[in-house]
């Protein structure tokens, strides 16, 4: 059903959208688990373990570049197989007030692959945007998979068996981040190493970070040192402005010096060594 796209549009996806979709899915799934354990009924089996959530993606389209910034949830009406239109329009109005440049670019859902019934929703959105995008998130976790389980589909008119039909085609996309998004993604990535490490590997990861930072500092100081040596030997003409800056830099060492700091420092290092011993001991 899905082949490679040829429309030539470049897609840029922001991490916020991915986080929103996975958050929506997680919420629905955990509420489902919670309610089924509270009522102890078995009639949630039609959804199985994987509920489908639906929503809308918004962003900016400039020429051939489509940049998807944000998303919001929508209610799916199983009887009419369509999304709640009134709610969509209300939300669109509200978002327009805050982000006047954002347009509805398409919709999202979860699942392992695009299905026939999705085309119905897709066509319904075509009156808002003549070529909507369909963002699909695969919620099943595959630890061997290296790239994101997110696929972007476009609709193209293909002639199949003599009948022109709209089918979904996959498109490639890039991830585009704003500074704030980069910080939060970085934070989430550091919370737990991907292979579920123990305290020792977390400690090792932390120390490795510090190690590379100090190594970089070391190399920069070495450059300064070589420069000064060359200047002293006379190979380079004296540049007073640089010398002044180096002397002002060296005055910042040591960074903190007072007895009070020494005491605090020793106490902090004592505590942290205790904590280290305890964590390794109890693991």
């Amino acid at each position, binding site marked *: 059903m899905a082949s490679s796209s040829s429309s030539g549009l470049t897609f840029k996806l922001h991490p916020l959208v991915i986080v929103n979709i996975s958050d929506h899915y997680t919420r629905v799934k955990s509420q489902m688990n919670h309610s089924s354990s509270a009522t102890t009924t078995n009639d949630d089996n039609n959804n199985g373990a994987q509920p489908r959530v639906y929503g809308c993606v918004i962003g900016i389209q400039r020429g051939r570049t489509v940049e998807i910034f944000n998303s919001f949830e929508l209610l799916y009406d199983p009887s009419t197989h369509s999304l709640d239109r009134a709610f969509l329009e209300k939300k669109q109005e509200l978002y327009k007030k805050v982000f006047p440049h954002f347009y509805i670019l398409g919709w999202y859902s979860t699942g392992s692959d695009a299905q026939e019934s999705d085309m119905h929703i897709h066509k319904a959105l075509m009156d808002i945007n003549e070529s909507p995008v369909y963002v699909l998130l695969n919620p099943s976790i595959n630890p061997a998979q290296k790239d994101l389980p997110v696929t972007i589909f476009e609709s193209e008119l293909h002639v199949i068996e003599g009948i022109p039909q709209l089918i979904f085609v996959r498109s490639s996309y890039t991830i585009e981040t704003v500074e704030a998004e980069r910080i939060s993604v970085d934070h989430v990535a550091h919370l737990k190493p991907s292979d579920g490490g123990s305290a020792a590997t977390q400690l090792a990861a932390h120390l490795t970070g510090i190690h590379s930072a100090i190594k970089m500092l070391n190399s920069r100081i070495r450059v300064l040192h070589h420069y000064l040596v060359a200047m002293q030997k006379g190979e380079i003409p004296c540049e007073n402005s640089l010398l002044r800056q*180096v002397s002002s830099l060296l*005055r910042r060492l040591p960074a903190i010096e007072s007895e009070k700091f020494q005491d605090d420092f020793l106490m902090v290092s004592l505590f942290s060594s205790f904590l280290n011993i305890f964590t390794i001991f109890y693991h």
Partner: protein
Amino acid sequence: MEIEQKQAPLIEQFVKQASTLNGPGPALVKLIVEATSHPSLFAFSEILSVPNLLQLQGTESSVYIDLLRLFAHGTWTDYKSNAAHLPQLVPDQAVKLKQLSVLTLAEMNKVLSYDQLLKELEVANVRELEDFLINECMYVGIVKGKLNQLRRCFEVQFAAGRDLRHGQLENMMQSLTNWLDTSDNILSVIQDKIKWAETMCEEDKKHKMEVKSHLQDVKKSVHSKVN
């Protein structure tokens, strides 16, 4: 280092002016006075190295060369002790010399007590001293720091560099070498710690496996005894 960027065009301008002016004379003297009273200029070694200026040495205006040297390397107390041999300072120059004295003091210590500053700068009271530090030093950008009124001290976080004296280059290189050695040490210590953490983890896992297998054996023996 915005100070250096601000000073660079001024230094260029003064150096150009000094090289075009020929011979000793009131023009050079005027240049020196102008340079030392300029509110944004704190570096004088470039101007000092202009050969035309050295011609002033030995004439009756040689006091001005000494004045320029004082501004490059000296402090307010140096001026006070040598006031007889140096020309009178206009108020702008006095302020600048005091600013430069603060920079020199910041070279030695990071925490400057108010008493020390009051003495060095000959300021009457703490209020004036704080005004001087805030307006003339921090707003201009040559120092950055915190004023601690309770402890009556000024904690310097950043101080712009003054012109280098002769021995200073060696000292700087020594500090740099020490810094390099310390950071090399830290790097090796961290590497050892990483290895230690990994080996501890390995040993812990091994220990757990041993305990588990021992437990299995004991269970089996108890089971067979019961049966």
